[in-house]
């Protein structure tokens, strides 16, 4: 079977997890610079730069690893993008939201060791969720190969942004 031949490039899940950890930490630090006692103040250039750097790190790592996956296997699997990179599974998205929330909270209170710990735990859980999806995919490829619909992905992004906004407003 084709799915049994499919492998991930070296350090695939680890690098995605590390990129997620970096993105969580940079987002938390960026937002802490712009949050005053009464909520969100004006976003500074540094805040936007740190936020963009987190996203850029994730996009760069994901782009390189997905290209390596395609090169190595000669296949494209939509579920890999949505489940492993975008973290649309329950474990990955849940771990990400909790870790990001904890990291932002810690950064606002200047508890930097907690920011680092939350970020690393979030990244590790994300990587673990990705590995679990890959094992499930190899067992039942037809069931797991496809990505979620674009509508569902859009709703997930909107829900994440609303949650982030509420966290900052009612912290």
């Amino acid at each position, binding site marked *: 079977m*084709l799915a049994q031949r499919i492998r991930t490039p070296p350090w695939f899940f680890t690098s995605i997890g590390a990129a997620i950890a970096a993105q969580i930490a940079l987002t938390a630090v960026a937002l802490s610079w712009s949050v005053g006692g009464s909520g969100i103040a004006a976003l500074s250039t540094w805040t936007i730069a740190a936020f963009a750097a987190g996203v850029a790190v994730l996009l760069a790592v994901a782009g390189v690893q997905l290209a390596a996956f395609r090169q190595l296997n*000669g*296949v*494209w699997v*939509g*579920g890999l993008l949505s489940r492993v990179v975008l973290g649309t599974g329950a474990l990955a998205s849940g771990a990400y939201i909790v870790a990001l929330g904890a990291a932002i909270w810690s950064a606002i209170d200047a508890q930097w060791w907690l920011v680092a710990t939350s970020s690393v735990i979030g990244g590790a859980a994300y990587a673990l969720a990705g590995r679990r999806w890959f094992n499930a995919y190899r067992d039942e*490829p037809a069931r797991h190969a496809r990505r979620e619909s674009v509508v569902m992905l859009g709703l997930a992004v909107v829900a994440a942004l609303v949650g982030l906004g509420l966290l900052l407003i009612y912290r």
Partner: protein
Amino acid sequence: MAELDPHVIAPARLKLMVTLTAVSEVEFGTVRDALEVSDSVLSKHLASLEDVDYVKRRKGVHRGRRTTWISLTPDGRRALDAHIDALHALIDGVTTPR
């Protein structure tokens, strides 16, 4: 009772369609190696399935070489599901003496 699909009934085509369900897109040489068929046999089956809009092909690049990328269409997936249902219905209740 659901009917078997004549476009999918040949074993090689059934294997090809089932293989395509495991991926969103696959490179020609990869699926050829997975199915252990020749280039010409695979091309022939792909052309037949493309004629009924069950698969689609596009030109692309893999490892620096020009190649063809193949994927199952939504119609192809529906046809395969219906064919599998028909197979299940056909053999349902059949027991073989031991």
